[in-house]
C-alpha cells in the first residue's frame, strides 16, 4: 500500500518534470546536441571505415584537404580527421563526465557537512572554498598537471580539485534552508542520527540540484581538458578533441592554413559544451528554488 502510493508519487513527479522540461526550447536543443554526440562517440567504430592508427602511406596522405574519401581531410600522419573526432569524443566526454561527477561529489560532501553541522566545521570548509575560488584555476591546473604528470586520471583529478566550489556553495545554501523545516526538526526530536537525517532527508532533497550542477560542470570540464591538452599537458596516449587541437597547433596548421585540422574539433567542443550548458540551465530552472522564484 505504502509502496504503491510512493511509486505513484514518483511517476507523477517524473511526468511533471518532463512537462516542465518540454517548456524549455534551449533544453530541447541541448538534449538533441548531446544525444547526437554521445551516439556518434559510442558507435565510432561502426560509423567509420578508417582507423585512427597512422596509415601505411604516411607521406602520400598527409594534410589532405577534405574530399569524398576523407570528409574532413587528414592530419600530419595521414589519419582521417573525421574518424579522429569521432573517437576523440569518447575521451572528451568521458573525462568531462568523470570530472563532473567527482567534483560534484566533493562539492556535495563539503556543502552538506558545512550546511548541516555549522559551527567551526562550516567556517573552516567555507574559508577553504573561498580560497580555492580565488586561486586562478588554469595556472593551478597547469602546475598540478606538470608536477603530477599527465595521464587520464591525473587530468580528471586536476580538473576536479578546482571544480567543486560552485556545487559546495549551492548545496550548503539549500541545506541551510532545509534545516529549518519541520520534518528535519521532528526527525531530530525523535532521535534520528545525523547520518540518517543527511542520507534520508537532506540528500534526496538536494539531489536534483546536484545533478543540475554536475551537468553544467561537464561542459566546463571538457573545456578544461582541451585547454590542458592544448598547453601540452594532455594524455598523449589517448585521442581527445583537445589533443587533436594540440597536434594541429603543434605541426603548424595555422601558418600552413590547414583549416580542416583546426576548425572541426573546436566546433565539436563548442557544441557539446553548449549542449551541456543548455540542458543544465533547463534543469536548473526547474529544480533550483532560487531561480524558480524569479
Amino acid at each position, binding site marked *: 500500500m505504502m509502496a504503491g502510493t510512493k511509486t505513484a508519487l514518483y511517476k507523477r513527479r517524473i511526468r511533471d518534470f518532463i512537462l516542465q522540461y518540454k517548456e524549455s526550447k534551449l533544453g530541447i536543443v541541448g538534449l538533441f546536441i548531446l544525444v547526437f554526440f554521445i551516439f556518434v562517440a559510442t558507435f565510432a567504430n561502426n560509423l567509420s571505415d578508417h582507423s585512427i592508427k597512422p596509415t601505411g602511406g604516411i607521406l602520400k596522405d598527409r594534410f589532405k584537404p577534405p574530399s569524398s574519401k576523407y570528409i574532413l581531410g587528414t592530419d600530419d600522419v595521414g589519419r582521417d580527421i573525421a574518424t579522429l573526432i569521432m573517437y576523440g569524443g569518447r575521451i572528451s566526454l568521458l573525462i568531462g563526465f568523470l570530472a563532473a561527477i567527482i567534483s560534484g561529489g566533493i562539492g556535495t560532501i563539503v556543502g552538506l557537512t558545512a550546511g548541516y553541522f555549522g559551527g567551526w566545521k562550516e567556517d573552516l570548509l567555507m*574559508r577553504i572554498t*573561498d*580560497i580555492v*575560488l*580565488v*586561486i*586562478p*584555476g*588554469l*595556472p*593551478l591546473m*597547469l*602546475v*598540478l598537471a*606538470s*608536477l603530477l604528470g599527465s595521464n587520464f586520471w591525473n587530468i580528471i583529478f586536476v580538473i576536479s580539485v578546482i571544480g567543486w566550489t560552485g556545487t559546495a556553495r549551492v548545496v550548503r545554501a539549500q541545506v541551510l534552508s532545509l534545516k529549518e523545516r519541520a520534518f528535519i526538526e521532528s526527525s531530530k526530536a525523535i532521535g534520528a542520527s545525523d547520518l540518517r537525517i543527511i542520507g534520508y532527508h537532506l540528500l534526496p532533497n538536494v539531489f536534483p540540484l546536484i545533478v543540475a550542477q554536475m551537468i553544467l560542470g561537464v*561542459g566546463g570540464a571538457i*573545456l578544461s581538458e*582541451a*585547454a590542458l591538452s*592544448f*598547453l*601540452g*599537458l594532455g594524455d598523449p596516449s589517448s585521442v581527445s578533441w*583537445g589533443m587533436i*587541437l594540440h597536434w594541429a*597547433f603543434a605541426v603548424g596548421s*595555422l*601558418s600552413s*592554413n590547414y*583549416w580542416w585540422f*583546426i*576548425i572541426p*574539433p*573546436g566546433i565539436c*567542443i*563548442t*557544441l557539446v*559544451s*553548449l549542449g551541456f*550548458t*543548455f540542458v543544465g540551465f533547463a534543469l536548473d530552472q526547474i529544480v533550483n528554488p532560487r531561480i524558480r522564484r524569479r
Partner: protein
Amino acid sequence: MSGRDYFIKRTVLVVTTIFVVIVINFFLFRIMPANPVDILISPTQGQEKMGIEIKEALMKDLGLDRPLYIQFIIYLKDVLQLNLGYSFRAPRPVIQIIAERLVNTLVLMFTGNVISILMAVSLGVIAAWKRGSKTDLGSLISALTLTSMPMFWVGGIMLLIFSVRLDLFPMFGVTKIGYSHPNFLSYLGDYLHHLFLPMITMALVSFGGLFLIMRNSLMDVFSEDYILTAKAIGLSERTIIFKNALQNAMLPLVTIIAIRIGFMFSGSLLTETVFSWPGLGYTIYQAVEWRDYPILQGTFLIITILVVISSFVAELIYGYIDPRIRTGASSG
C-alpha cells in the same frame, strides 16, 4: 555587520589566502617524485655527470639537508624579499623575468577587458530592457556560445582569418623581430599592431560570462519599484536607463570583476600562448614546456598573489560604493 568588521574580515581572509598560497607553492614543489636538486641538475643532462659530491654540496647550499620547517622558513623569508631563485634556462633571477613580462600581461588584460566590459554593459542594458526581444535572444545565445568555445581555439580562428587569410596582422610577438624603430611612435604603432588580435580575442572570451551576469543583475534592477515609478511618472527611457539603472548596475559590475579576475588570468594565459605574447601566461607555458621549475613556481606565486590582491581591492571598492555595507544597514 558594520563597515569596519567587513574590512577586517576581508583583510584576514586575504592574508590567510596569501599565506596558504605560499604554503601550497612550497609543498607542491616538494611532493614531486623528484628531488629539487635532481631537477636543478636538469632532467635532460642527467645527474650521472655531476657526481654525488656535487649533488650533496648543492643540497647543502640550498638548505635541503635541513628539516622541512626550517626550509619553509627560509622559503618564506626569500619570498618576502622577492627572491624567487634563478631560471634553469637563462641564468637570471626569476623575479627579473617576471617583472619584464608583467607589463605585457597587464596591457593585454586591461585593454581586452575594457572592450569586453563596454560591450557587456551596453548589450546588457539593451537585453535587460527589452527582455525577450530579438536583440536579447541574439546576444544571449552569442554569449552562451562564446563561453562554450575553447579560448585558445578562438585565438587560433582569429589568426587563421586575419593573419593567414587576410594577412592584416602579425602572427606572434609584441614587435617585429630584428627591426629597430627610429622613434617611440613607430615602436608604439608596431606594438599596437601586434596587440590588436590578442586584445580582441581576450575581449571575446571574456564577453560571454560578463554579459550573462550583467544581464541578470540589470533585470533585477529594472524590475525594482523605483524604475516602475520612473516609468509611471513618464520619464523617458533614456533618463531612466542612464540616470538611474546604470548607476545601480555599477555595483554588480564591480563584484563581477572581483569574481572574474582569476578567470581573466586564465584567459590571458591561453591567449598569450596562442599569440606568443610574452606575458606571465606565456612564461608559465614555456616553463612547463622546458620544465623550468623555478620560473613555474615563481610565476604561479606572483599570478596568484596578484589575483588575490586585486579581487580584494575590487571588494573594497564594492564595500565603499555599496551604502548597505558602508553604513552597516544590512545584517547579511
